[in-house]
């Protein structure tokens, strides 16, 4: 029993710790190739970019844990980024108001997803594939082919990307605080545990009386809300925003979750893991830039990373099952045959 306990505990924490180890290893490797890696400017750049993805990855992790998928995050990010920037350019809202608007818009978009999925029983892959193009279409609609440049935006907004709290970039603090809050919520509330239960055994959850549709609606709403926040952060960071902002980012967000140990079949994985996954992938991108390796490897590497992570997860589960079957065989073999 003891060895099983050790194995289990090790596996449970393996992902997060091995990610930390990987991150440190990778950082070391990059630093060897390009010493400017450790400069404050570079580190904060990496952290800020990773933080934006991490915020969206938190929401995606929630969705995937319930055995669903949200393909529309990048359209949400793009739409919110543009809408917020447009409002700021027109001076319709102040910075605080615009931020609040952006988050609420994300929430609404997420609720639309949740509604389509729970009310009309549309599979999440289809629903979010549809809203992916609807939301992006709206972005193009309000942009009308134009773009918003840095100079159009109020200085206080742009400053957010450069702000820091006690020396740590604001974005990192925001991501960290959100990670903490969501983690605690998932761990400490009955609702949070239901999120895991639904993904782990949907039929069992129904038998237990868990209101699955409500939970699924809520996680999609949360994913949209977080994507909205990511959109706000995106706009402040990049300054120049077109309607096509953040196109393709969904891949990065899902990759972060998968690398971070969130099982695509649902039921397991942590928000912390997803955030670490975002950091890892951000480091990979940074490493490529600094060591002057071709940027074009990036997509290919992201793809490989997803495949390796999923295959590894499947292999781990298989090994776990085989180990427990072997234990049983060992026990049976030591028993005397039945009289």
């Amino acid at each position: 029993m003891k060895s099983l306990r050790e194995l289990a505990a090790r596996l449970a924490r393996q992902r997060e710790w091995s990610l930390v180890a990987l991150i440190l290893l990778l950082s070391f490797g990059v630093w060897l190739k390009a010493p400017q890696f450790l400069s404050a400017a570079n580190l904060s750049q990496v952290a800020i970019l990773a933080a934006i993805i991490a915020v969206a990855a938190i929401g995606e992790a929630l969705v995937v844990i319930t055995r669903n998928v949200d393909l529309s995050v990048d359209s949400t990010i793009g739409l919110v980024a543009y809408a917020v920037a447009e409002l700021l350019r027109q001076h319709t809202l102040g910075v605080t108001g615009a931020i609040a608007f952006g988050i609420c818009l994300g929430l609404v978009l997420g609720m639309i997803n949740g509604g389509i999925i729970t009310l009309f029983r549309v599979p999440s892959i289809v629903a979010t594939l549809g809203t992916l193009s609807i939301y992006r279409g709206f972005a193009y609609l309000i942009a009308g082919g134009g773009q918003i440049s840095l100079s159009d935006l109020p200085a206080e907004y742009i400053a957010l990307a450069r702000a820091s709290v006690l020396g740590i970039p604001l974005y990192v603090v925001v991501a960290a605080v959100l990670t903490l809050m969501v983690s605690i919520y998932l761990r400490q509330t009955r609702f949070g545990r239901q999120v895991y239960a639904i993904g782990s055994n949907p039929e069992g959850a129904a038998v237990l009386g868990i209101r699955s549709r409500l939970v699924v609606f809520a996680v999609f709403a949360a994913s949209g809300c977080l994507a909205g926040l990511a959109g706000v952060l995106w706009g402040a960071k990049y300054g120049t925003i077109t309607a096509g902002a953040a196109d393709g980012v969904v891949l990065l967000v899902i990759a972060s979750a998968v690398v971070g140990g969130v099982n695509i079949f649902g039921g397991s994985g942590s928000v912390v893991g997803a955030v670490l996954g975002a950091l890892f992938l951000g480091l990979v991108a940074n490493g490529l830039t600094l060591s002057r390796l071709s940027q074009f490897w990036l997509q290919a590497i992201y793809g490989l990373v997803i495949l390796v992570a999923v295959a590894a997860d499947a292999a781990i589960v298989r090994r776990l099952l085989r180990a427990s079957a072997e234990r049983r065989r060992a026990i049976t073999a030591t028993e005397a045959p039945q009289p």
Partner: protein
Amino acid sequence: MVRAASVLELHAVSKRFGATQALDGVSLALQEGEIHALVGENGAGKSTVVKILAGVHAPDSGEVRVGGTAVDIEGPAHARALGIAVIHQEPRLFPDLSVAENVFLEHQPRRRFGGIDWPAIQRSASLLFGDLDVSMPLDAPVRGLSMADQQLVEIARALSIEARVLVMDEPTASLSVHEVERLFAIVRRLRDRGVAVLFVSHRLAEVFELCDRASVLRDGRHVITAPIDTLTTTDLIRHMIGRDVRLFPKAPANLGDVVLDVRGLSRHDEFSDISFSIRAGEIVGLAGLVGAGRTEVARVLFGVSPPDAGEVRLAGEVVHFDSPSAALDAGIAYVPEDRHQDGLVLGFSISSNITLPILKRLFPRLVVRGSKERVLANQYATRLDVRMTDVEQLVGALSGGNQQKVVIARWLATRPRVLILDEPTRGIDIGAKVEVHRIVSELATTGLAILLISSDLPEVLAMSDRILVMHEGRLTAELSGDAATQERVMFAATGQHGLATG
């Protein structure tokens, strides 16, 4: 039987499913602090009782009384709220969540400010398992645990909601001897604490070892309830069977050469050292209890899973099948146990289902000609007397008996040399059952070698030329002629020896 101490009662409960009367006026009473066995053959009504108590079905008539008050169990959650906990044969836990969490899911203790009190969960889980005298890795995900351990988690969960009634449905089917002992010790301790345990099982040895009283169901009716020390195994079996063997029309067949020869076949954790042979025109019955490993043997013969050791010969030649497709090309046909999951494509027509395995043979030039297909399908469907509007009808619309005939028709169309039937008459009504038996008997006369896997004793006894009995993965008996009696088969199937040879 003091009425006042009855924790749970069924009073004249009846339940019908379609054409079958699963329960007919059954009355049972469970007392506090007793282990009560519920025994009966397959189809006697045991699992219907369990499902009613679990809140899955509602009785058509009669009452369920908890603590003397009549209740309408509205669903599984309601059953739990009433203090009835059911341990199923296959545990229904959440594989990714930890053991401790599974025990307390949906009723976690809370801290003052609303958060879940994890330390309390750890403590309580630890106490619960300590009470059961089991050491369990509280933080491990349930996925890695053995069936036996998962069962214990379910029991701990039942205790955590302070269940007054614990219903255990065939709990020992997947357990080793050691694990069974451990389970029994726990159940006895629960009984001593006043929990009423309903122990549903086939395994008569265990019933005698563990239980205080036993109730027997037969054909949906209650036969007897008595303290266990007033009964013997023979008594129980007689109550369970209670009738003459019905003779089905089985024509005598000329036995030909050995077609299928199995030697020393083994597969880890499933069965070991299985050897037998079947001749052309012979029907060999394979009897045993649920979990004895019979279907697993059939799956190996059909190429679904590979064996670890042993040899299979078809008409003298050694064969290895890596897929069902290879097996059927060689002439082996398998009518699966679960016709809905593995047997039929419900969304297809009768015709498409019948021709599915032989499409390549029928249409070597790829294009399917509906007329040829229909003619062939009609041929087989009418030969087996399938009641349908025409062969284009969807199989989902047919009755269970007719669906089974379609499955048999399909396998006949592959012109096999060996036909393996796995519980062929499960879930079909009497009329269709007789027809299936007639068909099987007729098939034997055409020279087919038939392996009949069945838990229906009269069926096995009447249809087989020889009967093999399996118990926990091993062959415990081979019976034929006068030695093939119900008692002998039952003894061999429940692992008792001494009377098994003949």
